[in-house]
């Protein structure tokens, strides 16, 4: 049998296997890091048609979240306010600002201002705001410190793993119901320890669904 392969070819299978393993490892690591909601969503801060600054309106002016997101306590959707809500103040303040032109046009014509949707879960997962904000979960847990954002950015991954993290351990994330809309407040656990959080969860009979039926309908 003539020698087709040089001697160095003996180590080839092992090399191939090692390279494949390393490649798979890199690919897996890459996918796990880059192709999960934690990477792809966090930081998403699209440009909005009107440069609304939560920092100015909430921190500086002291508006409560519910002034605009008025149905968050009643409905599953936390509504983005209608132009009428904006015009309640802006028919007297900055009445000629070009930045507010879309709002004024919208109020006059009835067309919507095309806000860009930032916090979006898949269609098959149903999240209900009212169930959370009425039971001690603050806006800041999922949306971050919106009161300090000039431009709203996606703060948490809002993946199912993120939701389950809290659903499995609500005692560390709940706060006093009157602190829910105070984004600078602390959770009960941070203020008084985990036992206090657990007591709240027990007293309020908080049983966050961990089974599929909780969100998947």
């Amino acid at each position, binding site marked *: 049998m003539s020698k087709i392969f040089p001697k160095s070819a003996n180590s080839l299978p092992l090399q191939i296997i090692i390279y494949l393993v390393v490649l798979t490892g890199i690919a897996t690591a890459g996918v796990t890091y880059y192709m999960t909601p934690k990477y*792809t969503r966090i930081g998403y801060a*699209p*440009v*909005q*048609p009107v*440069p609304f600054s939560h920092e100015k309106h909430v921190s500086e002016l002291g508006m409560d979240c519910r002034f605009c997101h008025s*149905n968050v*306590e*009643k*409905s*599953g*959707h936390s*509504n*983005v*306010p*209608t*132009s*009428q*809500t904006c015009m309640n103040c802006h028919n007297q303040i900055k009445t000629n600002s070009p930045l507010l032109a879309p709002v004024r046009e*919208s*109020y*006059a*014509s*009835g*067309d*919507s*201002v*095309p*806000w*860009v*949707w930032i916090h*979006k879960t*898949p*269609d*098959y997962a*149903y999240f*209900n705001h*009212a*169930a959370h904000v*009425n*039971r001690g979960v603050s806006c800041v847990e999922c949306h971050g410190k919106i009161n300090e954002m000039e431009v709203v950015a996606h703060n948490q991954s809002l993946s199912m793993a993120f939701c389950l993290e809290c659903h499995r351990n609500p005692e560390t994330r709940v706060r006093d*119901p009157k602190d829910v809309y105070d984004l600078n407040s602390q959770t009960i656990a941070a203020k008084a320890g985990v036992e206090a959080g657990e007591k709240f969860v027990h*007293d*309020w*009979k908080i*049983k966050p*669904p*961990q*089974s*599929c*039926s*909780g969100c*998947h*309908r």
Partner: protein
Amino acid sequence: MKRKFDHSAPSESALTGPRYWRSLDELTATPGFQQHLAREFPEGASTLDGVDRRSFMKLMAASFALGGLGLAGCRRPEKNILPFGKSIEGVIPGLPQYFATAMPLRKSAIPLLAETHQGRPTKLEGNPTYAPHGGASSLLAQASVLDLYDPERATVNTSKGDVLSAAAANDLLAGVGKTYAAVQGAGLAFLAEQSSSPTRARLVDQLRAKFPKAVWSEYEPVSDEPPAAAARAVFGAAVKPIYRFAKAERIVSLDADFLSAESGSLYYAREFAKGRRVTKKEDPMNRLYVAESALTLTGSMADHRLRLASSHIYSFAAALAGKITGDAVYARVAEGLDIKPEWIAECAADLAAHKGTSLVVAGAHQPAAVHAIAYAINASLGNIGRTVDFVEVAADESVSISDLAKAITANSVKTLVVLGGNPAYNAPAELNWPALQKSVGEVIRFGYHSDETSALAGTHLAAAHYLESWGDARTADGVVVPVQPMILPLFGGITEIETLARILGLPKTDGYSLVFDTVTALGGGDSAKTFRRFLHDGLLANSAYPIVSVNLSGRGLAQVLGSVAPAVGALSKANLEVRFVTDHTMDDGRFANNGWLQECPDPITKISWDNAILVSPRLGKELGIEPKGSLIQVARKEEADFTQGAENAHVFTLTVGGRTVRGPVHIQPGLSNYTAVVALGYGRTKSGHVGTGAGFSAYAVRTAQAPAFVTGATLVTTGTRMKLANTQEHWSMEGRDLIREANYSEYKENPDYVREMGIESHAPSNLGKVGEAMTPAQRATEIPRGGSLYETPKFDGVHQWGMSIDLNTCIGCNACVVACQAENNIPIVGKDQVMRGREMHWIRLDRYYSDGKADGRAMADLFGGEPSGNSILPEDPQISLQPIACAQCELAPCEIVCPVNATVHDDEGLNTMAYNRCIGTRYCANNCPYKVRRFNFFDYNLRPLDSLYLGQLAPKGMPELVKMVKNPEVTVRMRGVMEKCTYCVQRIQNGKIQHKVKTAQAGRPSDVVVPDGVIKTACQQVCPVESIVFGNILDPKSEVSVAKAREQDYALLGYLNIRPRTTYLGKLRNPNSKMPDYAALPLSRIEYNNKNHSGDHSSSHGEKPEKPAKQSGGHSSVLPSNHSGGLS
């Protein structure tokens, strides 16, 4: 007051979809990008002008890549949130709004609450304020919401092929009014449908006053109310009966399908169920005798059923009346009736023993003489004012369509206005309406679809659906209900009352004003308040038809009897009777393009997408189409020749009165021997792609002289075959204990009879001795004798959901099937897929025939023995119905076999489905013993039903209009995932959340248990007889716990130890032991005993009263005597 929503078309700036940058210019033009630029590269922004593309790219490359252009393909598409410009009072995005309305149908209406999401109606429920219905609605009402979003509805007005604008249409109508005002209406004719609307009645009166010479004709192809001539003859008054079934203990139905086909059937079903429901052995139970030719739902509930040709019902009624009253006036009519005299004698005796608590009902389609006899019997038994009330109704002064046809033939009609209906399709055949309509000079057709009548009309005005119209109607007992629009007319259609108002030239022609004027006049008091209350409640208080006392006139009765001769001539294969029935789902054909109704199988024949000529097994044998036998492994005679899952029916021509129609023949047990039953409402030629070509039209052989039944027909084979989509091949329970039945007398002695049936009665309990003694709540939480191979879920939720279905009251109306489809976004699959068994209904109704003959000797005839019990199709069966949906088994066999854990159990007892995780293995459906899991074989929601097999190459996309009917609370499923009943998990979750929000805001946050009755599943809410009960089994006082505590409670296939949360309550029958067809046990029970207790080994069962005589195989004395001698 009704909110006025503005649904003007979205403008340019309102984006409707993902917005991709198509070009750099587009990107640079938006204000957003300018700001982005200004923020990131202030110097770049200023140097943008006058820079060429290359330098621009160089400058911006990095920012583009980071800003999203480079990685745009990896980024999710940009979506928008579009709030309103101006806020709308009372609208909370995410929460549905409910408004009261009503669905009018002929001379009655069903009051409804429409659930609207984002301004469009998605689901209809009954209006609970209207007590007689108790919040229930019918199958047709549930499906009517889909009609609103029918892409093939008329969207424009047309005149001679050109589009007519709304203004031009208004001018046209006003012009008609002006032209004919001058001649007092001579030459003007209207052909309208029946309507109960007080506003329309008011406008018609004005029409008659303004155009005295005009012809106002009303035509309905099917009748659901007794003919007015009967009451006029015997009472001398314009009255109609309203039956009080709850007070009746003995009911006789003379070909009356009062549980589903007659006007007021929802109320009657509910009341009948009150008398039927037996919760403990002291409760009374009513008894129903039915004499009919077709097998209807009322017949399936009968305790004694006589198969009798419809044309002989008259003689039968006379015989019964003669026996009860002893009056000789009936003798002549009753002559020649060929049935066992004992049947009538004993039935009469039973009625006579219940004076004042009995009831005789005649079918609406029967001639006036039969109704006169029924009224006379009721009067003689003292039922009037107790089990039947007569209410005063307006006398009908309209002209019949036959008289209108005469006027057209005499050339006295110059302008014909057709309001609704479809006379070109369903007018009596002898009129040859299409030719008549074409002969009229000007035909203005007001209609919802562009159908057969529109094709022959010069002008077509697009009608608005009742969900987008202002109007009013009356329920069957006369209560005025509103018809409120839920949404502005999607295509600018107008309503019937607006049309009439424009022809009249009234100053106010909008529907709202017309209805306001009518209702405030009827209601009195402060008009604004009255009207607001009317719209809020959904009915006008104290507006029912007044009950009047009536006196039977013997002379009137004798006159009626004398004028109608009894039917003569024996029926045979050469002289068949044809019975035209209103189809259960198509009604008279108006719902032909409604996919939900086409796909909903007929409750008795189980055929969908088609109608058939139904013949009795005897006639089938004589015609030579009896199925040739069955597969060896099947222990029963097939009900038809099935090939590859589809019924292969013989096609015959039916000839009656010289007219012929072709259609497939289906053998239907339970029919009168020589009656061919044909359902109306199919065979549309111009109905949209759903309705066209489904079935054949029986109107082609129907005349005005005999609209319901006619004799002298023949059936001749064509030699060809045709496939029918039959959803249930199994007609026999084959001796299994699927539906556990007992006679009422046995139940009274032994309420625990369900425990003596099934394998559970022979084997040690799966729950162990301790578990057997537990309540359902305890069993759920403690899981006695769990011992299963996988970890059973811990049922520690604060609720545990369960359901109980009462088989004793279920009438098989199929409203639950369509309600579930509407609530859960269940797609239709089309006839081809139904033939493959792929219909998507989450709940189905199983229908079984029992004749007492099934036994354990299957295939005996193969080995030369006597034919085994199920080897012949039953002629006179008892019918049993069972709704089956996912039973949410606690130890579900479907959960352990899912390779990806897409179906898991939650802590409240629901077997949940995560659609996005399902990979379509279908092992779960395989493992389900009830076969309630449905698989999306194709993308039924995205691809058209006629190109499913093209897969990705098929045209993509559901029409926007059809998308609007989907319920946003439920996922719309794609190809390749499994779905099944979820106990309406969206309603459960929303109910729990709303309760928690309410209690948290009220300061009682630990109160998290939802009170009983707040959360209702769709099927429970729609059921008119309250057969389906759902709730929390942890609460011992909840309705469902009470139902499960009843002795008749059992689990279907309970021996499998899967612990279903949906259990059934056994069925009871209440036969009269003196009747000739009395059976000491229900026939299915006899079959069960034959199959399971053949031979003598029943010593271990102990002594129980009413035990059947020992069976030695074959027919025992407890079987009903052969009643093939019935008049056929």
